[in-house]
């Protein structure tokens, strides 16, 4: 992308916003977001991310995208992972290790069930949910 | 001038904007204690003694660093401030040895003074001393890390005033020490031995190497013929050690004191200052008229400066005057010309120089050129501070001494020789004689205002009967770089050199405030000492070096002419590039 004008920036924002709202990115409707701050990585987030990729691959789950984000603030239960899938409330899982990652894929992604003992609470409302107005 | 109106302890004070609160307090007859502030330096704000209160503010200000402001109201002394200051002094004392009686600064120590004023009678806090050896690696100064109070003056002097960067804070917190990088000995660092650190140190952590013992042994040795010389700047500063105002000319008393100390002959470096002008002036004229030799010619009388140049600007070596410093010229002719004339075996001559400078202690052993006479040309250098102690310890009542005269044939001097001790003086002296050398006539007005003054760098043009001589003067080592960069740039661009002649002195104000001069030198003191030298010049019958009868005599009897072969052998030297750090 070349340097943008104001109009281009606004257009890009609108496009990306609707993508996020539809929760469909690049035709993928399910997102696994791994908290990859220093704290998460120190607690094993990289291994967890790899485990997700491997597990999704094994089950040929092509509509799932795995991305990273920063620290969610829940340091006591790192690594943390947010799962957003159609028809389900988006939830944050904590204390996710390789085994839990596999369980999340099987139960949550494939079985539409929340995984017991690992759901944690998002710490606050989103001040930008109404577009920051 | 912008004036600010403020109050010190309720008393209205008017003061120039940009001043600090210390200065404002002085105007209100109030002294605020400080151990780190020095008027030569920007406020470093380390010691914590000068804290003052601002009315209606809970935070204390540092009087050294806080600028004056309109309507500012300051409390400088109260019970709380007294207690804070006393606690700070006691804390500093808890990390400082209390061997005051055996300290180089006994009696002149600023910390000792405050301990006395604040009536410190016990050591309440845990004592932690730095257990590091003294650095005696240089011939000039001694670093005693155990005495250091980390006020930072020496580091600021070394870096900001002198641009040398030999000293730095090493380590952090209470492990901080002042030392050359990589814990190298000072002598292996870029140190130029100017000794400004020792002149600014408030305590006994950096001081001149004391060699009074060598002097005493020499004069009591019947085999030795002790001959002395005194530098121009010593005569206007030594008096301060005997409570005379700065700038008081004490030449006659110094000669007298030296004789009482048992020396055989009392000569004067000023004679050789005149000799230097003959050589260096001729050299300049030669470079200008023959086109041989690099332009600008740069003075080389200052050993700290030559050391600096060899380390930081070795590309300037060709620009340096090959003339030795007056002290070294005096040393060389003492053991040749004088020895011959007086029929004294030069091997028995012990040549002592009284100098305002610590680098002079280094200069006498710089290289083989300092043995031009076949012997060590100068055997010993004592700084003004050592000399004052020597006089006192020898029981000489300096103030009541009769004035005496120097000995012949190398003791007489022209006014030109005496102003060698201040910034611009070498230039002025050289121009007086260069005029004569170039035109065959003497200047009507020998006082050349263009090169006088205290600005760190001064430039001017001097008309020598139609020939314009572009000159520049720098003092305070850090100021020289602007000039030298100009020269380098012109050289790189193939342009005309921006100057023909440059005078450099390492210390601010010139030798009058050399690293070996009495303590508490400020710009005010510098101005008084400089005024003393100009007065000495004015009072001299002969103002120009080439008119000095003894100078004429030495050329007639011994040297032949300036730049003669003999002159070259005895009075000129060479320079070599030196590394900043020896490994």
């Amino acid at each position, binding site marked *: 992308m070349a340097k943008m004008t104001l109009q281009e920036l606004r257009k890009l924002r609108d496009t990306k916003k609707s993508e996020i709202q539809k929760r469909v990115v690049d035709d993928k409707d399910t997102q696994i977001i791994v908290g990859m701050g220093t704290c998460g990585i120190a607690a094993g987030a990289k291994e967890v991310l790899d485990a997700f990729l491997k597990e999704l691959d094994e089950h040929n789950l092509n509509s799932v995208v795995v991305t990273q*984000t920063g620290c969610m603030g829940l340091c006591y239960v790192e690594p943390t992972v947010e799962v957003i899938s159609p028809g389900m409330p988006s939830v944050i899982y904590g204390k996710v290790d390789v085994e839990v990652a596999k369980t999340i894929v099987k139960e949550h992604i494939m079985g539409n069930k929340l995984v017991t003992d690992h759901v944690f609470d998002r710490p606050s409302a989103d001040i930008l949910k109404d577009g920051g107005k | 001038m912008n004036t600010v109106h403020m109050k010190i302890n309720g008393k209205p004070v008017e003061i120039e904007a940009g001043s600090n609160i210390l200065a404002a307090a002085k105007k209100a007859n109030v002294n605020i204690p400080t151990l780190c502030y020095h008027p030569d330096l920007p406020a470093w704000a380390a*010691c914590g003694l000068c804290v003052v209160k601002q009315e209606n503010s809970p935070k204390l200000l540092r009087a050294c660093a806080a600028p004056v402001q309109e309507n500012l109201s300051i409390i400088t002394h109260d019970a709380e401030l007294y207690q804070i200051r006393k606690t700070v002094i006691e804390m500093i004392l808890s990390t400082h040895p209390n061997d005051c009686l055996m300290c180089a600064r006994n009696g002149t120590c600023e910390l000792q003074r405050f301990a006395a004023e604040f009536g410190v009678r016990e050591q309440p806090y845990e004592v932690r001393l730095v257990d590091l050896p003294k650095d005696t690696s240089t011939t000039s100064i001694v670093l005693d890390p155990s005495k250091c109070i980390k006020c930072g003056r020496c580091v600021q002097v070394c870096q900001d005033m002198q641009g040398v960067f030999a000293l730095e804070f090493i380590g952090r917190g209470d492990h901080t020490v002042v030392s050359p990088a990589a814990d190298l000995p000072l002598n292996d660092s870029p140190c130029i031995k100017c000794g400004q650190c020792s002149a600014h140190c408030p305590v006994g952590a950096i001081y001149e190497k004391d060699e009074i013992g060598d002097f005493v042994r020499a004069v009591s040795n019947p085999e030795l013929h002790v001959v002395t010389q005194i530098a121009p700047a010593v005569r206007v500063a030594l008096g301060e050690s005997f409570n005379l105002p700065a700038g008081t000319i004490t030449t006659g008393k110094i000669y007298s004191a030296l004789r009482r100390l048992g020396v055989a002959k009392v000569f004067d470096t000023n004679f050789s200052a005149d000799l230097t002008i003959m050589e260096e002036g001729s050299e300049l004229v030669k470079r200008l008229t023959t086109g041989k030799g690099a332009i600008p010619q740069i003075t080389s009388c200052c050993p700290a400066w030559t050391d600096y140049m060899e380390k930081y600007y070795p590309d300037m070596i060709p620009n340096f005057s090959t003339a030795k410093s007056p002290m070294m010229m005096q040393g060389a002719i003492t053991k040749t010309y004088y020895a011959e004339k007086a029929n004294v075996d030069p091997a028995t001559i012990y040549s002592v120089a009284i100098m305002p400078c610590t680098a002079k202690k280094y200069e006498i052993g710089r290289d083989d050129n300092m043995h031009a006479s076949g012997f060590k040309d100068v055997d010993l250098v004592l700084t003004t501070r050592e000399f004052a102690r020597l006089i006192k310890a020898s029981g000489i009542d300096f103030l009541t001494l009769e004035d005496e005269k120097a000995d012949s044939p190398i003791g007489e001097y022209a006014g030109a020789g005496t102003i060698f001790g201040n910034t611009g003086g070498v230039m002025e002296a050289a121009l007086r004689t260069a005029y004569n050398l170039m035109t065959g006539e003497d200047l009507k007005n020998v006082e050349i205002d263009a090169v006088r003054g205290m600005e760190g760098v001064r430039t001017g043009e001097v008309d020598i009967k139609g020939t314009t001589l572009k000159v520049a003067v720098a003092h305070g080592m850090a100021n020289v770089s602007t000039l030298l960069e100009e020269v380098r740039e012109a050289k790189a661009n193939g342009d005309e050199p921006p100057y023909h002649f440059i005078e450099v002195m390492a210390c601010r104000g010139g030798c009058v405030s050399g690293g070996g001069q009495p303590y508490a030198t400020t710009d005010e003191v510098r101005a008084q000492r400089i005024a003393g030298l100009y007065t000495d010049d004015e009072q001299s019958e002969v103002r120009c070096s080439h008119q000095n009868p003894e100078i004429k005599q030495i050329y007639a009897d011994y040297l032949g002419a300036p730049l003669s072969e003999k002159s070259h052998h005895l009075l000129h030297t060479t320079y070599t590039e030196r590394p900043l750090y020896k490994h």
Partner: protein
Amino acid sequence: MSYRNYILVCGGTACESSKATEIYEALVNEIKHQNLTEEVQVIKTGCFGFCEQGPIVKILPEDSFYVQVTPADAKELVEEHIVKGREVKRLLYNKDKSKKHAKVEDIEFYQKQFRIVLRNCGFIDPENIDEYIAREGYAALEKVLFEMTPDQVIDELRTAGLRGRGGAGFPTWMKWNFTKQANGECKYVVCNADEGDPGAYMDRSTLEGDPHSVLEAMTIAGRTVGANQGFIYIRAEYPLAIHRLEIAMAQAREYGLLGKNILNSGFDFDIEIRLGAGAFVCGEETALLASIEGKRGMPVPRPPFPAVKGLWGMPTVINNVETWANIPVIMLKGGDWFSQIGTADSHGTKVFALTGKIRNSGLVEVPMGTTLREIIYDIGGGIANDRKFKAVQTGGPSGGVITADYLDTPIDFASLTKLGSMMGSGGMIVMDEDDCIVDVAKFYLNFSVEESCGKCSPCRIGGRTLANLLEKITKGNGELKDIEQMKEIGSAMKKASLCALGQTAPNPILSTLNYFEDEYMAHIVDKKCPAGKCKSLITYNILEDKCIGCTACARKCPVGAISGERRSVHVIDQAACIKCGACFDTCKFGAIEVR
């Protein structure tokens, strides 16, 4: 097929101990009973905080937050909420609406946290500028470049009442205004990312999670004060944050959001990263600027302030990461919006790194005015291992302790200072009854002493003397006069040190002396450490009536200080004992006592 409802039962230790399992089972039975197992999933979760109000049940997707639920409530919850779709009002968490910070309408939510600074952390991929842009990223810059004058920006900041989040809380608009009005050949904008308090990592997380918010804010400042160059001074120990900043800067440059002629506005601004070597004192702004200039990081006296004479002598706006991260939101939502959050004295939110003996440690962002109790108990879930709360340290090594008596103090700049602590950059370390207060003071003081630059004598010498006095006291060699000396030196350091590091270094001592003088006295007079922490002051003894002579302790003792025949009472050789506590941990019969 998905479930239509999810019932989440908090399975945190606190809720667990108050019958969470029974509630879970009751709910499962009730769902079965109603034949809803295909429609509703009941699961146990991790701790939700609010442990004082537990057990907690949350029902999704409505996000209904039920507190103090009992097994008996299961039936009603299922019948009302799940079957009839009506929330059970009497169990819903009732937010105290009298609090000023509840004024903002859109936080009618049970959470105590309110995230402005951390708005994007954990939401977006920090390595993808598009995600930042999608969440109103660079919209504030747009506004500033095309719709606002620099004076309007400063007015907006003034209305917002944003104060610096680095520690002292200086009004941000004033800093910017000084720099804007100052004359200089050029001006600079600096981000202080030299976070270094023990236990604080707010800035690291912000930069790792949302680097663009800082870049955008610095560009806004550049536009406002007339600077074209920014520097981010960040410690080299933060490699991930540096990496993400570098990616963010490259992406912003590619989009033309940094560099020449940003969005064709004619405004140029770029940013460079400068790495710090980790000296704590380089977080002090004048030392930081010296370090950027390549000099030794030592503070210089202020005034002149960096806003007027900063980097290379030029006017410089310097703010810390958290302050920067607030700026785009203020520009976007307006100063008025921001000023309604918090207390009269301190607007907006504050991020804390909640650590220590706390159940749910983590990064929390709360509106100013939130009480310590809310942070520690509602968000942090209370003290770990059911120990008793002793104190909380805010402001890191510059702050002080706050005791249980003051837990209901609403936190803002003024209230913490009044308590002898300070806001600081946001470290919040919780201590329990096992923490020795003298030991805590020693820890912080040693930190400050090691991090002192050594420039000014009050800090350099006073700090070490204080540290040694504390060492002496914890070693059992304390004397009563030591207390007086500590106060004397402490107050001289506070008043006469050059920078905030030295001025605040004695705070941990002075504040613990203030609140826990009896504990100091116990060390000095009784030669006892009540918390059992100071090894020189404790002894391990074997209680004759409890020891069964199992020899476990003797086998564990690393120095062979315990002797005794099998099945007879053992004895500890006090001279040989190194007080490691291995015997205490090993004994299953409670036969070892610490005195």
